[in-house]
């Protein structure tokens, strides 16, 4: 049974992309792909455009509403951040919203990763009738916008008296076509068929194979998929906006009320504080795990 518990190290397959820089340095192809000053200038500009709105959100969130509404706008942080955070916290159920978004995005990520890994494994390595057609179908479902199902779903949720409850946002997102495809692409390459066959010879049934062979090998891809789904679910807007209210909002629903403005005594600085508080958790995740997320996006794309 030792073959089952110690599968080939997953990093042998990496995430599908060998680190290109090293390869290029080894090739020693001279200077033709070395970045010049103009490249750095343009990339610097792109980085500034990407980061400036985030920096400015922080700046605006640390001033009074009067100051933010004066031209020229402030460019350096002020001292009002904590006052603004407490205003947004008290007036817009931000604490509840952060908790709800964490619960929703966490559960959605967990279940999407589990179900996608199972389905991805079946599509990548198990022979069965209709496999190719069904896989095409999975990819095709990605093209159907949520707008086509909101109306009946809203009716059902209302009938069940689930309006305003978190399960109405969680249930429709338990598994995603994107995740199934992502895991299939990864496992098709990273999981050697011999391992499965060896386990079969040892008499392991397929759930046992999933647990002892597939999951250990899929772990790096599962982690990346989990992060991607978490970000996506945290930022999901349309359906939560339709079905939840301000009594029990996710972060995005709370932000939509802050932006709508009329119900609260909320100024521009407080609006920016809401945007900051709602985005900060994800930015922190990005600051720590950004490299892995970048790797995941690039890995999923190569073969599509």
């Amino acid at each position, binding site marked *: 049974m030792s073959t089952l518990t110690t599968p080939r190290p997953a990093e042998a397959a990496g995430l599908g*992309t060998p680190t*290109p820089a090293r*390869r*290029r340095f080894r*090739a020693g*192809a001279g200077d033709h792909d*070395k*970045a*010049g000053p103009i490249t*750095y200038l343009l*990339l610097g500009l*792109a980085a500034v455009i*990407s980061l400036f*709105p*985030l920096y400015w959100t922080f700046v605006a969130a640390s001033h009074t509403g009067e100051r*933010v*509404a004066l*031209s020229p*706008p402030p460019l350096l942080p002020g001292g009002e951040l904590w006052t603004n955070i407490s205003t947004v916290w008290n007036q817009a159920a931000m604490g509840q919203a952060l908790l709800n978004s964490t619960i929703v995005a966490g559960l959605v990520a967990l279940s999407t990763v589990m*179900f996608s890994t*199972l*389905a991805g494994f079946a*599509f990548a390595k198990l022979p*069965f009738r209709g496999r190719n057609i069904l896989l095409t179908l999975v990819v095709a479902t990605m*093209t*159907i*916008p*949520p*707008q*086509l*199902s909101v*109306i*009946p*779903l809203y*009716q059902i949720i*209302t009938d069940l008296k689930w309006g305003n409850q978190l399960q109405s946002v969680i249930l*429709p997102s338990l*598994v995603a076509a994107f995740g*199934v495809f992502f895991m299939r692409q990864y496992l098709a390459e990273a999981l050697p068929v011999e391992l499965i066959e060896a386990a*079969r010879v040892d*008499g392991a*049934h397929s759930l046992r194979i999933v647990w002892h062979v597939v999951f250990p090998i899929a772990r790096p891809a599962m982690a990346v998929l989990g992060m991607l789904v978490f*970000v996506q679910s*945290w930022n999901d*807007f*349309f359906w939560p906006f339709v079905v939840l209210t301000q009594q029990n909002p996710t972060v*995005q629903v709370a*932000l939509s009320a802050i*932006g709508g403005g009329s119900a609260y005594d909320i100024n521009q600085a407080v609006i920016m504080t*809401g945007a900051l508080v*709602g*985005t900060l958790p994800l930015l922190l995740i*990005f600051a720590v795990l*950004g*490299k892995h997320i970048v790797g995941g*996006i*690039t890995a999923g*794309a*190569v073969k*599509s």
Partner: protein
Amino acid sequence: MATPAPSTSWRSRLYRFDLKASPYAYIAPFFLCFAAFGLIPLVWTGWLSLHQVDLLTPDVQEWRGLGNYTRLWDSEQFWTALRNTFTIGVISTVPQLLMALGLAHLLNYRLRARGFFRVAVLAPYATSIAAATLVFVQLYNPDYGMINWALSAVGVERTDWFSDTWPSQIAISSIVTWRWTGYNALIYLAAMQAVPKDLYEAASLDGASRWQQFTRITIPSIRPTILFTIIVSTIGATQLFGEPMLFGGGVGVSGGSAHQFQTLSLYLYELGWPSRQLGRASAVAWTMLLILLLIGAINLLIARRNRAKLEG
């Protein structure tokens, strides 16, 4: 494929059953979830689109035939929303994908601080639609916003980014572009790194300039990826909702006071919820589906013709 020792016949039967049935068990959650929350509601939406239904009494349905669709056809607001969806779609995806291509090309050079640049251009992707739109609403404020202030410094006169059609659509498109350019750039970058290096070396030996290498080697090599991003962004553009909704503030649902930036999704929401006409909203939803199918068919035709050209 080896079979285990058939110690007992029920055991080998169980084994064979496991082999046959388990793949279907593993893919079942996805298809069940899709049936319950995607396919059945989609068909149900089509049924509703042939009826008059009030949001508050959804069980009372009055047959309308194609009435909801002919009413859409005659509605000026529907055509405005369709046109807006198209124009916002074009000005938010075309520059976005072109810039992403350029950015990917730059990121593909041998760089210092490579990791920083990649994470930096991806940061907008971590920002939600709601947060990003609220921030850009401030930046675009005609009176004290950063953008008019910067434009006035170079002599451009005050632009009203909210009430005029083109400025408001450009502003909304800029939010979409800001959020997605880096993400698409990383997808292109991954595809570019899979292009064999010796192709470039051979080309530069033959005296091809960098620009020629980019247009003759890079672009053709990553063509499938480009097609993929075009399809994904087109789908995204047809369902644009949060950005125009929140950009409009108090009048967001109607897409501005003259519907100047109301998209089809927003129109659907306005009909279904504030106006409570679920039947008409369903007709808008199915019209969106038909448009997507049409775009898909056109894409397929172009892809097939390209393939024929390559082979022929």
